[in-house]
């Protein structure tokens, strides 16, 4: 095949994206030259901020759609989802790539990013996470490679990849499941700093369940937008199926969240008017309760526009959750014990905007130049 001439490279949207990438690149250059203190508002009480909470934790959760759809298509053999398989896996790959860029900029010594690969520390969750990122990004590259190989017409290589695909998917699903939960496990070490609204020993699995919800919402949204932007029509049944999956996942998540709210912090902690309480309510309302109220009505569950709204709410809610765990859960400790505060700097916002724009730009280029949308 050749490039899709229906998709124009230079539209106002794309020019905007490229401008954001350039601005983000400039901010990233400033960070590399001047260090983290100059470019960010991070401090010793808030060592992890917007880049970690949004770009890394949020970005990886967004990539959750990749392993869910890959599992549906290749492991459960639900062939109806095949048309959204490639975009979902590509999104996951781009999501991890973007998380790696953010990690590269966030750590103090970017050029030592490879250290965990040789300095094994199996007692460190961060090391487990690092190894997962390396292995899973490689796996996602393999899972995404058929498009490129088909475009290049490298038939032998395409056939070889096809032969190991199922194995790669099973391996990838295992890695991704563990990686999503390991990101939650990172925070198990901070029970005396985090608010009990978020800290629980079940945190790894709450991360996993919410990543599944986020992943379903992401692939659904992406397919809806691609249908509009790239004229790739997907059977509405796919959206309804994803919506049902979202309903079940959110219901399970709500039960766990409510159980841990009562068991750990007490219901009062959510309604005490504190920053932590309010952020908890926001996260739950936007990401869980309102979407569930919409989804339980069959009429909205079988309407693409209704599902679109639900998807956006869930994505926003889970992003808020990741930033809550990473930043706001320690607000009281940091204010009372450390007298510290944090709000992201302009450069932190610019870099994030640039990274997200870069991802969308790459996705669009893939839609134009690669056989991204294939029908079952």
């Amino acid at each position, binding site marked *: 095949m050749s490039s899709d001439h229906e998709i124009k490279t230079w539209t106002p949207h794309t020019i905007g994206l490229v401008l954001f990438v350039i601005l983000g690149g400039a901010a990233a250059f400033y960070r590399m030259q001047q*260090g983290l203190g100059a470019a960010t508002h991070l401090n*010793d009480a808030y060592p992890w901020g917007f880049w970690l909470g949004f770009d890394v934790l949020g970005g990886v959760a967004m990539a959750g759609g990749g392993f869910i759809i890959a599992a549906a298509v290749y492991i459960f053999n*639900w062939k109806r989802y095949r048309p959204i398989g490639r975009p979902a896996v590509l999104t996951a790959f781009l999501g991890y790539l973007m998380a790696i860029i953010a990690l590269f900029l966030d750590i103090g010594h970017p050029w030592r990013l490879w250290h*965990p690969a040789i*300095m094994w520390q*199996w007692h460190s969750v961060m090391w487990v*996470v690092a190894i997962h990122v390396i292995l899973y990004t490689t796996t996602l590259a393999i899972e995404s490679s058929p498009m490129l190989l088909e475009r290049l017409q490298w038939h032998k290589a395409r056939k070889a990849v096809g032969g190991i695909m199922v194995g790669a998917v099973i391996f990838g699903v295992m890695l991704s499941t*563990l990686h999503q939960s390991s990101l939650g496990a990172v925070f198990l*070490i901070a029970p005396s700093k985090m608010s009990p609204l978020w800290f629980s020993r079940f945190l790894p699995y709450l991360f996993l369940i919410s990543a599944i919800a986020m992943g379903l919402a992401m692939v659904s949204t992406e397919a809806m937008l691609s249908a509009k932007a790239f004229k790739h029509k997907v059977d509405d049944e796919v959206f309804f199926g994803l919506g049902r999956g979202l309903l079940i996942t959110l219901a399970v998540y709500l039960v766990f969240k409510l159980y841990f709210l009562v068991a750990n912090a007490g219901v009062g902690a959510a309604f005490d008017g504190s920053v932590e309480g309010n952020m908890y309510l926001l996260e739950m309302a936007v990401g869980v309760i309102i979407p569930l109220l919409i989804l339980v009505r069959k009429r909205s569950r079988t309407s693409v526009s209704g599902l679109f709204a639900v998807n956006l709410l869930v994505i926003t809610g889970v992003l808020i959750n990741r930033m809550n765990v990473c930043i706001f859960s320690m607000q009281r400790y940091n204010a009372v014990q450390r007298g510290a505060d944090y709000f992201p700097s302009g450069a932190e916002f610019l870099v994030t905007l640039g990274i997200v724009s870069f991802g969308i730009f790459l996705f669009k280029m893939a839609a134009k130049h690669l056989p991204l949308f294939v029908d079952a």
Partner: protein
Amino acid sequence: MAINRRDFLKVTAGSGLLLAADVSPGLASPPKSLPPEAVGILYDATLCIGCKSCMVNCKKYNSMPGGALRQDNGSIPYEYQSSARIYDAPTDLSAKTLNIIKVYRSGTGVNKDQVENGYSFVQQHCLHCVDPACASVCPVGAFHKLPGSGIVAYEADKCIGCRYCELACPFGVPRFEWRNASPKLVKCQLCRHRVAEGGYSACCEFCPTGASLFGKVVDLRAEAARRLALPAGSSYDYPLNRIGSGRSMPKKVANYYQHTYGLTEAGGTQCMLLAGVPFDKLGFNPRITDQRYPDLTWEYIVKVPILIAALLAAGTVVQRLTRNKGDDR
């Protein structure tokens, strides 16, 4: 119907059970125990006069080769870079301050070592945990305990600067060089460069009152227990500088708050504190428990190998079972 709800629930519930199950194989956590020759500091706030000699000498001796504040270019981190060469006046631990004396005050603040209308000094620095969270979370092993002395040491060459140690340390000790484009984490390393040469930490060597006392942890624990047992108002010959130095100073015993901070906190620390007021008044987070912090993440990590095997097996089985099915579901 595209997603069969029954299937979905089966899989979800199955993996949920698997995750929640308490699978702890024979692999025990590798808890660190106190080495018999481990060293530490006993800080007694009731002896501290707030002269900050420990702070000044900490900076001075840690700026020397091998010290924790030593800069690659040899510059002195505690002097402002101006012709006046003014010393800094830190208000908190930082990348330039390993050790700091702070003060608690209440009301009129006239009674030393009392809660009401009183005041107390307190020293903050790395407590050198027996089983440190920073070393357990570090993905590259930049933090580690030195064999023998048990000092929690840091190797800048390995460090990637992820700052997980800052998040993990319950005492908020490690500090990052935010202003440096090639940064380090900075914390007290108990003057390991001086200990290696038979010396001991500068804060204790230059403490005039014995408030900071260096020694083997077992001796310090015995000394702390002895002091807590003394009746307030009696006289006691307080050892100076380090246990076994032969120097001492008699002083009237203050009314101790009956607890040795660091004996059990976070699984025990090699540096310990005594004071006349409760330790949460002195800035210690009351939510810190006696839990060994590394166990918290270890409980998860032991499950990882089992989860890897279970997920690979489950994926393979499901794929085999469903591969010949049409999509008529």
